[in-house]
């Protein structure tokens, strides 16, 4: 940061309140304790934790000193790398990145405006568009491909994304077996398991089940990721009033306890392995029983949860830029743009959710390109008001004056457009939106709707997209892993494996 520059940011919690949240979170870890899967019982026992001794109920009580010790071994920051081996995403500090929402099952058809089951071609299109948008530092395994066997749905999504993108990937598995195949896929992409550990290309979302429950599958995933040294993003999702205390402060406390428990399991299995203080907290809608992702309180929960993680010095994640609207309409735009701004000002390292409609049930690639504009605006806001000038040599330097030097050249003529400074600096001062944003003067043509402009933008990005050229042997390895896993699952279920082409 340059001297004299105030970066805009929002804090919702006072230091005193963060202290109280953590104190109570540590209390919750002892009473009522945390339910854990059998996969981690031995690990916890060897750390001196007794699991379900009295009732044999799988409940572990995690003492604060042990949790603190695990917090101390968790890295303060780490990077995700792109296929070229460049550091692309910095998880840590106040750096902010965005990725599309993930794991949708439905796609909004822009023609009929109806939701239909998502397929491989939809995921490919989302990846192609995301690849061309600098607003997204990472890809996500955005939709479930309903045309692929569901038993390997998680692996297959990553397989599609890796073939079509060079960017880092935010992903997740649907089962313990699925994770193994996915890590193999990433290792094949990186060259080796060791290379993957050194320069991770992907981060895996792992979710506890509220309240305070690390299921068999979740526990297992944490262990496997920690041991493989592949980053884990703990996505705790309390629903305030439904599966968590109704107060926002109470839900932030439950979130903290769930993530602390996850970090403990994770760090016991692989001390120093990268882990993210993440979440998808939301309020519970008292009319529908749903999780309104566009609510301002949902954004507040995400911001506050991240603040607690930052206080502990950990990398952070949140789920924003989504909407509860079923259409790409004014509600979708308002809710998504608002939470993009709030998330950026909260300094959350990775913000997932763009492109999502209907409280995460449906994906729209048109919404994705509109959200990209909101994200760019949020990123611009987060950069704040910078003091800069432009000297005669054409270098961007801190200026002695804000305006007087420019007035010295123009006098009262008003001819700022002609100034060298104007030409040199306007690209830094202003975010220049794509044609998705209409700022044109009214002409003879009737004004166009944002959805129509978004459709054109999607078409344009798809037409400009170039598929990465992966070495033949890597592609063969990919295919072999997918075939192996499909055969294994098919064998288990007694059906024939039938993979769609993409």
């Amino acid at each position, binding site marked *: 940061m340059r001297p004299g520059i105030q970066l805009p940011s929002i804090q919702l919690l006072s230091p005193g309140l963060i202290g109280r949240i953590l104190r109570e979170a540590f209390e919750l870890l002892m009473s009522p304790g945390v339910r854990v899967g059998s996969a981690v019982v031995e690990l916890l026992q060897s750390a001196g934790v007794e699991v379900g001794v009295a009732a044999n109920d799988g409940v572990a009580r995690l003492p604060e000193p042990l949790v603190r010790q695990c917090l101390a071994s968790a890295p303060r920051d780490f990077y995700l790398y792109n296929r070229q081996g460049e550091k692309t995403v910095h998880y840590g500090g106040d750096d902010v990145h965005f990725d599309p929402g993930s*794991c949708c*099952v439905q796609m909004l058809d822009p023609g009929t405006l109806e*939701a239909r089951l998502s397929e491989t071609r939809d995921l490919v299109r989302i990846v192609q568009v995301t690849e061309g948008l600098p607003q997204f530092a990472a890809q996500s395994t955005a939709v*479930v491909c309903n045309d692929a066997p*569901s038993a390997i*749905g998680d692996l297959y999504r990553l397989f599609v994304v890796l073939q079509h993108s060079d960017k880092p990937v935010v992903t997740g598995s*649907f089962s313990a077996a699925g994770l193994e195949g996915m890590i193999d896929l990433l290792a094949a992409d990186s060259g080796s398991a060791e290379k993957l550990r050194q320069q991770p290309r992907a981060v895996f979302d792992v979710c506890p*089940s509220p309240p305070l*429950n690390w*299921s068999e599958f979740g526990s297992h995933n944490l262990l496997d990721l920690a041991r493989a040294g592949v980053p884990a993003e703990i996505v705790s999702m309390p*629903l305030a*009033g*439904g*599966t968590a205390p109704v107060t926002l402060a109470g839900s932030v406390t439950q979130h903290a306890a769930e993530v602390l428990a996850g970090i403990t399991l994770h760090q016991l299995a692989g001390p120093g392995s990268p882990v993210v203080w993440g979440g998808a907290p939301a309020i*519970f809608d*008292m*009319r*529908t*029983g*749903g*999780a309104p992702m566009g609510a301002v309180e949902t954004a507040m929960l995400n911001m506050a949860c991240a603040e607690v993680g930052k206080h502990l010095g950990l990398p952070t994640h949140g789920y924003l830029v989504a909407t509860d609207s079923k259409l790409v309409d004014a509600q979708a735009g308002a809710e998504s743009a608002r939470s993009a701004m709030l998330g950026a000002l909260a300094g959350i390292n990775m913000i997932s959710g763009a492109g999502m409609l209907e*409280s995460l*049930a449906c994906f729209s690639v048109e919404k994705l390109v509109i959200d990209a504009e909101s994200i760019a605006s949020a990123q611009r806001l987060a950069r704040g008001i910078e003091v800069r000038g432009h000297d005669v040599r054409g270098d961007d330097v801190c200026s002695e004056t804000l305006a007087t030097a420019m007035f010295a050249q123009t006098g009262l003529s008003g001819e700022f457009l002609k100034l060298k400074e104007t030409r040199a600096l306007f690209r830094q001062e202003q975010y220049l939106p794509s044609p998705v944003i209409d700022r044109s003067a009214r002409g003879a043509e009737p004004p166009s709707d944002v959805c129509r402009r978004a459709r054109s933008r999607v078409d344009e990005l798809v037409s400009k997209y170039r598929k990465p050229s992966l070495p033949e042997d890597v592609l063969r390895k990919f295919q072999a892993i997918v075939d192996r896993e499909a055969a294994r699952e098919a064998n288990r279920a007694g059906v024939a494996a039938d993979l769609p082409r993409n």
Partner: protein
Amino acid sequence: MSDPLFQAMRQSIIDGAPEKAAELAQQALANGVDPLEAVNRGFAVGIKFAGDQFGCGEMFLPDLLASAEAMKAAIKILEPEMLKRGSEREALGKIVLGTARGDIHDIGKNLVATILSASGFQIFDLGTSVTPEQFVAKAKEVDADIVGVSALLTTTMAGQKAVIEALDRNGLRPRVKAIIGGAAVTSKWAAEIGADGYSRNAIDALELAKNLMRKVMNKDMNTGTALA
């Protein structure tokens, strides 16, 4: 004479006050009021009102749950006397509920169970992560009218289909109706897997269950006629 008492009963349900509802139920028994009448003219009117208020957005889920709890408290007091008099409140139908295999999210299913139970259905709640075989066994055991399968996750929705297939395999359908629910469930999915119905929330589930029971009853009557 009893009108103010019935009015108070209704109000105790609308207010979601279990202690008050239980107290009024005791009072009714002490005054010799027919327990079935206490339900039909008092408490049940309150739960219907609460449901309607929820439907038009004036009451919210916590209010509705409190009303259902109050209803339960009243019925608990009245039930022994109803049994004694042989004036049992006839169950609207028998419903087996559970979440699909692999799914441990039960908040929606519990809401449905509470509302249906408060409205007079007999509920057999199998809990979470229930296998198709368990659904079938329970449905046979209690001679269920309806089987309801809840799934929150898109990955466990396949479990709903498995239950319907198991009911079919065991020859329980079409006599037993299969209904589904859950955040990601749509009417399209319900149609695709051949469910007899789906609802978006607990109050709609009540309407759905009542409508299906009408079909069940009609079917029984028709069968009766055919046999006679």
